């Protein structure tokens, strides 16, 4: 009966709200975002300083990342005319990757994307970009008509389908983009916290000494989930980037 007596799950505010320091509104998540931005900038600037024909070291890594975004993301989804978005998409991918990896780096151990504000801002930037691309390529009238009314639609279904597609264009796409990243990161964080709390309860708040070795089980699970979260961090950065590319491609080629 006393096995889990010390186990109380803290309210969600204690897991995602951090104390403000230095400035009002400046907390651990903001600090993490700034550090991630500085890391990405420093890596790219120091890799681009020497423009060696045969890349070595850091330049090799950065060129591999750019090649991955160009060949693996843009050419597969938009095509050659989307290569103008290579700088934005590369920035997005590397920044998200570094931000998400802060989930498992000791002493930070909090993904800044687990607060809704940052994914929402990134999704709004994506929303502005793909709408601007559509308007620029087709003009506002043809863009709205082409992206809300699929060709060959029966007249009777027109209002319903146009309403759903319009809703998708305006709200559903950016909202689902932001929620996907936010919820994945928050779920991973909660999972890590849960098993860490289980370990703590079994090891330190357990009045039955006989059961203390059982703490190995949640600890092993926590280590396994940490490895899994590396996969999730890379995958979510990739998915956010490729969905941005897909939306830009859809706005660019609405006629097919």
């Amino acid at each position, binding site marked *: 009966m006393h096995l889990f007596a010390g186990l109380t799950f803290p309210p969600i505010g204690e897991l995602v709200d951090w104390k403000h320091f230095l400035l009002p509104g400046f907390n651990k998540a903001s600090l993490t975002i700034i550090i991630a931005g500085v890391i990405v900038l420093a890596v790219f600037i120091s890799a681009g300083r020497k423009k060696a024909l045969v890349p070595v070291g850091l330049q090799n890594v950065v060129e591999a990342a750019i090649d991955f975004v160009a060949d693996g993301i843009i050419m597969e989804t938009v095509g050659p005319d989307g290569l103008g978005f290579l700088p934005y998409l590369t920035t997005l991918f590397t920044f998200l990757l570094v931000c998400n990896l802060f989930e498992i780096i000791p002493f930070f151990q909090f993904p800044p994307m687990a607060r809704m504000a940052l994914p929402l801002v990134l999704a709004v930037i994506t929303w502005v970009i793909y709408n601007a691309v559509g308007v620029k390529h087709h003009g506002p009238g043809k863009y709205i008509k082409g992206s809300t009314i699929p060709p060959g639609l029966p007249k009777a279904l027109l209002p319903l389908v146009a309403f759903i597609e319009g809703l998708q264009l305006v709200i559903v796409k950016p909202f689902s983009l932001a*929620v996907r990243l936010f919820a994945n990161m928050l779920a991973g964080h909660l999972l890590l916290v849960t098993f860490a709390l289980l370990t703590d309860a079994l090891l330190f708040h357990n009045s039955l000494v006989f059961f203390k070795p059982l703490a190995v089980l949640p600890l092993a699970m926590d280590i396994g989930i940490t490895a899994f979260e590396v996969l999730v961090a890379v995958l979510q950065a990739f998915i956010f980037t490729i969905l941005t590319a*897909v939306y830009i491609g859809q706005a660019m080629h609405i006629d097919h």
Partner: protein
Amino acid sequence: MINLLAATDVTIGSKEVLKGLSAVGAGIGYGAAAIGPGIGIGIVVGNAITAMARQPESAGVARTTMFLGIAFTEALALIGFVVFILLKFSS
């Protein structure tokens, strides 16, 4: 030994009932929201593996499309998770 269950001096008012019911609703809601995406992701990945096994040379395209399909399917389960968090912790 069973002193955990012996909390007798708790008064149960409408607030406690509301809290309990929202916890029950949150649990059932997330469980229900996970059914469809679970089946959907299974179908997506299964068919992608079939495609990769039939044509190993186009495995790259199939893998990219598979991740896209997973991302679209998974969105519903994640919205269910967000609703769970909102119901469980904000009421």
